């Protein structure tokens, strides 16, 4: 294994250890019967959330390794100290470990495969949201030493609890570690699924099989090492539910987790609202308690990103939906229709299989079998659809079940009328997995042999399908680790213009770059994440941002290229150098790099082959 991979494991481990500095905090609100794994998970999540929010609050003014590295180091030491007391208990085996071994081995295999596949460096085109913006923000924050939304990429203004953790990895010089942060959240999700199943009094073996089914659900595991934040959001939402059913003493811990969910993704505000309503309706929480203790804590923990947006961009939710824009922004703040492309893009992605009452009734069927139509290739197996109704019916008198059902129903309804993209409904799907555990247990315990055979078939056949899907998706990344040749093939296939980026990143002459806009939305474009040098873009490729206003076009930008302060231009076009103060320095079939003329520099043209020859000794 290469040192970069070992360093990535060390960096992710350091962040995990730092989170354990919070051992013994929120877990105190859990019932005494809660397992050690549950306690460590919720405390670790508290640590990850608190560290990220703290770093964000300071990072808005100064985000540098000068204070971050020592702070993380000290927290990791505290984490080690606190962990020392727990370690002997961690290794204690359950009495019925033989029954639990098969499902837990499956879940462990998935975690291991994801962790290994995640050891490749990020590679993807503009279609890869994880690289296009979840990683782009952290890269620029670390480069500029301040956490700030990027004018050329709207989504970098989203709440970014997880992205701040990615930025820690980059500050600690690891581009690989962010995918391992995803794996840490994935493990936390599996523990919490187990925990919630056990709260509903599902058996240990059944709960373990539900955990294995979640682990092998492509909809869930395919986002884990792709730098998405849907699994972390689900983890915080599920932790909030776990605390909500733990009793009145856990109200503050519930609020903390809801705040973290809001800090992870805008849709965390929806899960928080739904949690609040469900607690009011079914868990007998008094409105006074919720208003007096829950809401203030949620606002305190969840508000930093929204407050930053309000101060810096004039609106707490950015890009603002129409109503929010009218409420907070003056008409002249941005050009008319500035956000139209963003919302048009979201509407296309979130179309699903259509709205209307008929599609709502058919949703369980459509979403289970045709998840790909909701941009969720691979689906999530059959456990929620097959065993969910049985589990709900069997335990319908339990307040926790009513709470979960209302929570999942409200979330699904809001999802259905807003943005019907599959990964946004992962929290609802996971709650259905939990509810299904009781149904699965009933079928496993049936006296009728055909019921048991069918139950195992419904559980295992989609799991085999999920395993095949997972291996087919992640094997190119694992293979890329095995040899330099495989790695080169992998990057050539997944990074558009890798040669161009290599030239820019290795050349001392390049100090800053202008990235031109592609000629149309269907034209391949360069992802700024791969640039190690400062850059400006004429136009955001996906959402039409105009960071250089009043400059709107490539031609205007190229005419003013000297005033923009860039030294080079990267473009897929062949530019007319007689019209602009530029000369060609590097070209490949994908694109070209032009250098801005210095007054005393002789214009020089070179092809890739000439440059290769020149670089040879």
């Amino acid at each position, binding site marked *: 294994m290469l040192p970069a991979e070992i360093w990535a494991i060390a960096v992710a481990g350091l962040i995990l250890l730092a989170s354990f500095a919070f051992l013994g905090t929120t877990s105190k609100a859990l019932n005494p019967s809660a397992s050690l794994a549950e306690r460590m998970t919720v405390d670790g999540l508290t640590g990850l959330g608190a560290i990220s929010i703290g770093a964000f609050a300071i990072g808005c003014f100064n985000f540098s390794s000068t204070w971050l590295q020592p702070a993380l180091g000290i927290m990791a030491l505290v984490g080690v100290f606190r962990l020392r007391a727990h370690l002997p208990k961690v290794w204690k085996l359950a009495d019925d470990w033989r029954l639990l071994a098969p499902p837990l081995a499956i879940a462990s295999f998935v975690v291991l495969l994801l962790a290994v596949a995640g050891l490749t460096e990020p590679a993807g085109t503009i279609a890869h949201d994880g690289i296009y913006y979840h990683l782009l923000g952290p890269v620029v924050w670390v480069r500029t030493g301040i956490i700030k939304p990027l004018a050329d990429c709207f989504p970098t203004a989203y709440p970014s609890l997880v992205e701040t953790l990615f930025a820690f990895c980059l500050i600690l010089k690891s581009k690989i570690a962010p995918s391992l942060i995803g794996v840490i959240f994935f493990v936390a999700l599996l523990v919490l699924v187990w925990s919630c199943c056990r709260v509903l009094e599902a058996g240990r073996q059944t709960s373990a099989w539900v955990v294995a089914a979640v682990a092998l659900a492509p909809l869930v595991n395919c986002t884990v090492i792709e730098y998405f934040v849907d699994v972390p959001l689900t983890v915080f939402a599920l932790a909030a539910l776990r605390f909500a059913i733990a009793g009145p003493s856990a109200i503050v811990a519930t609020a903390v987790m809801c705040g973290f969910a809001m800090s992870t993704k805008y849709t965390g505000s929806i899960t928080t609202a739904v949690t609040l309503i469900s607690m009011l309706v079914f868990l007998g929480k008094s409105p006074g308690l919720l208003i007096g203790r829950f809401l203030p804590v949620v606002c305190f923990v969840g508000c930093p990103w929204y407050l930053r947006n309000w101060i810096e961009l004039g609106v707490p939710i950015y890009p603002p939906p129409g109503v929010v824009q009218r409420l907070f922004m003056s008409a002249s703040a941005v050009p008319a229709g500035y956000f139209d492309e963003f919302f048009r893009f979201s509407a296309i992605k979130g179309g699903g*299989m259509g709205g209307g009452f008929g599609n709502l009734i*058919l949703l369980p*069927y*459509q979403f289970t*079998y*045709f998840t*790909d*139509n909701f941009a969720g290739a691979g*689906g999530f197996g*059959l456990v929620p*659809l*097959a065993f969910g*109704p*049985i589990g709900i*019916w*069997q335990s*319908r008198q339990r307040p926790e079940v009513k709470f979960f059902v209302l929570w999942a129903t409200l979330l699904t309804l809001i999802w259905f009328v807003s943005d019907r993209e599959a990964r946004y409904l992962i929290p609802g799907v996971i709650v259905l997995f939990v509810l299904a555990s009781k149904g699965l247990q*009933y*079928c496993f315990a*049936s006296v*009728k042999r*055909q*019921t048991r055979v*069918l*139950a195992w*078939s*419904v559980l295992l*056949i*989609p799991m085999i*399908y999920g395993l095949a899907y997972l291996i087919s998706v992640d094997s190119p990344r694992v293979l890329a680790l095995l040899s330099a040749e495989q790695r080169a093939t992998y990057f050539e296939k997944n990074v558009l213009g890798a040669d161009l980026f290599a030239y820019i990143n290795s050349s001392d002459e390049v100090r800053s770059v202008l990235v031109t806009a592609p000629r149309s939305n269907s034209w391949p474009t360069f992802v700024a994440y791969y640039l190690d040098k400062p850059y400006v873009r004429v136009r955001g490729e996906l959402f039409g941002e105009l960071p250089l206003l009043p400059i709107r076009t490539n031609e205007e930008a190229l005419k003013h290229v000297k005033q923009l302060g860039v030294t080079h231009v990267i473009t897929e076009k062949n530019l007319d150098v007689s019209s602009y103060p530029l000369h060609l320095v590097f070209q490949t079939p994908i694109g070209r790099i032009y250098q801005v003329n210095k007054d005393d520099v002789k214009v020089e043209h070179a092809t890739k082959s000439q440059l290769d020859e020149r670089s040879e000794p």
Partner: protein
Amino acid sequence: MAMKSFRVIIGIEWWLAYVLVNFVAINLLSIHTVSNLIKLPSWGH
């Protein structure tokens, strides 16, 4: 008792078989017109 009522409404074995047959037909055999086989509106893919 609760599960007896469930069985009256829909037999569990029939329900599980229905869920599984749909999965095998749609995902493994790629019979995307399974909805036509069971005389339901075409739900497409």
